[in-house]
C-alpha cells in the first residue's frame, strides 16, 4: 500500500513534482497495480537465482584506444541540444 507519505518520498527520489491533485489522482491506480503485483507472493522462489541478464555473457571489453568504440563530439555538437549554455559549459540552475 502506497501511502501519501510514500508517494511524496518516491516523488522526491524520482524528482517528479506532484501537486496535491496529482497525489489524489495517482494513489488509487498505483495501489491497484501494486495489489495485482502482489500475486507474485504465491510463487515459491525458494532457492531460485534471479535472472539479471538473460544471456550467459561474460567478459565483454573494449581496448583502451582513443576513439576505439565511440568518437568524441566537438564542443559545438556536445552543446547543440543544451537548453542553456555559457562559455562552452552547460548552464544549470543554482545549487542552493
Amino acid at each position, binding site marked *: 500500500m502506497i501511502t501519501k507519505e510514500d508517494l511524496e518520498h518516491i516523488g522526491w527520489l524520482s524528482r*517528479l513534482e506532484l501537486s496535491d491533485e496529482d497525489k489524489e489522482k495517482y494513489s488509487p491506480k498505483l495501489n491497484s497495480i501494486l495489489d495485482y503485483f502482489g500475486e507474485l507472493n504465491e510463487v515459491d522462489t525458494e532457492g531460485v537465482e534471479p535472472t539479471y541478464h538473460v544471456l550467459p555473457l561474460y567478459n565483454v571489453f573494449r581496448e583502451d584506444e582513443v576513439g576505439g568504440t565511440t568518437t568524441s563530439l566537438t564542443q559545438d555538437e556536445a552543446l547543440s541540444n543544451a537548453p542553456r549554455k555559457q562559455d562552452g559549459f552547460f548552464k544549470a540552475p543554482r545549487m542552493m
Partner: protein
Amino acid sequence: MWASINELRERIHAGSSEEVVCEYLDRIGSSKLNAFVTVAAESAIARAKEIDSGGHDGVLAGIPVAIKDNISTKGIRTTCSSNILTGYVPPYDAHVIERLKAAGAVIIGKTNMDEFAMGTSTETSYYGATKNPWDTDRVPGGSSGGSAAAVAGGEAPLSLGSDTGGSVRCPASFCGVAGLKPTYGVISRYGLISYANSLEQIGPFATSVRDLAAIFDVVSGHDLRDSTSVDRKTNYSSALENDVKGLNIGVPAEYFGEGTDEAVEKSVWNAIHTLEDLGATWTEVKMPHTKYALSAYYIIAMSEASSNLARFDGMRYGIRTEDSNWHTTFSQVRAAGFGEEVKRRILLGTYALSAGYHDKYYLKALKVRTLIKQDFERAFNDVDVLIAPTMPYPAFKLGEKIDDPLSLYLADVDTVPINLAGVPSISIPCGFSDGLPIGMQVIGKHFDEAAILRTAYTFEENTDYHTKRPEGL
C-alpha cells in the same frame, strides 16, 4: 503502394529512388493515421538523389524505411513521442541506422509511439494517438504503433520498432503485418533510447516474411558498442524455405486462457492445423509460470525505466522550465515533460527498487523471471517452435482502455513472457475477425530465428492473410 522490396528495386531501377520516396512522402502527407512524428522529407529526397546518382548496390538501395522515434537518428529529431525531448536532435546514429544507411536505405521519417515505449496502444504519445489503418476508430497497438501502421497503411514498405514486452508484435498483430522480436542481443541496442534494457530488442516490420528477413539481415549483427550484443551473424533470408515437414510445434495451453477472444483462438488453431497439413506435428506443452509473467515483466520494466528515464532533467537536451534551485528545476522539468503513464511507471519503478521493497518486488520479479525462462527451456527440450496468439483479442477502440492502466497491462499477457526469456518471436497475420486482423506468434529457441522465420514463411506461402490490405485510406 504496399510494394515489396523486389518490386521497389525494379521500380527504382526503371525509374528512380527519388520517385519512390516522393510517392511515399505524398502518401504520408495525405494520411489520417498520424503514424509519423517527424517526416524527414528534405533529407530523404536528398539521400534518394544521392543513391540515384551513386549507383549504390546495397540490398535496400533507395528504399524508404520508417524508424520508431526512440531510435537515435543523427540530424533528425528524436523525441520518443515525449514532450520532454522536444527539439532533441541526436548528434549520432544508432547502430541500426548506420547499418540501414550502409545498405542504401532512405530514412523517410520517425514514427509515432507510446511515450517512451510505455503502452500497448500508441495513445500515450505527446503527439496524439496513431490510428489503426483497418479501422481508424481503433488503436494500432503499441508501443510501436506508428511503425506498424505506416507499413500496414502503405506509408512505408519497411520500418523498425522496438519490443520490450510486445511492442513490435502487438501492433504487428493489430495492423496485420509481420513483426519480429529477435533473440536478446541479436540486434545492437546502441542508440535505442532505453525503456527496459534487460528486456528490449529492436525489431523490424514488413508486409511479408521475405521482406522482414531482408531488413533483419541488414540490421542484425555484432556491435562493439553494445556489451550485450552477440557475435553470431547468420543470413536469415537463406533460411526461408517453404517446408515445415518434421517440424515439431509446441502449443502452450496457458496462452489460450481466460480472456482470449474466441475468433483469435480459432484462427491460431486453424493456423496450427494448416502447418500440420503441410507436414508439421504439434503437441501441447506446459508453461506453468506464464500467469506470473505480467507482474514480473512490469516490475522489472518499471524498475529499469525509473533509472533509465532519470537522465531527462533538462540540462543537456530537451525542455527546460524556469530556473529555481536545481532540485526544484529538475522536479518541474520532469513534471512538465513526462506524461501520466510515464510518471506512473517511474513512480512504481522507484518504489519497487526502494529500501524495504527491493526484495519484495524487484528481486522477487527477477526470480520469477528465472522460472519463466526455465518454462521455455523445458518446452524447447521437446519442440522446435511454439505457436500462440500474439494478442488475446483484435484491436480495441481508441480510448477504450486508456483510463484503466491495469486492463491495458493485461493485454500484454501473451507477449511479455517472450521478453523475460529473451527468446525470439515473430508475429504474422493468421485471420480476421469483423474485418480486423488477428496475429499469431511463432516463438523460437535462443538464436533460432531461422526456425521461426521458416515456419512463418511456409505459412505465408500457403495462405493469403498477409496479402490483405485495409481499404478506404
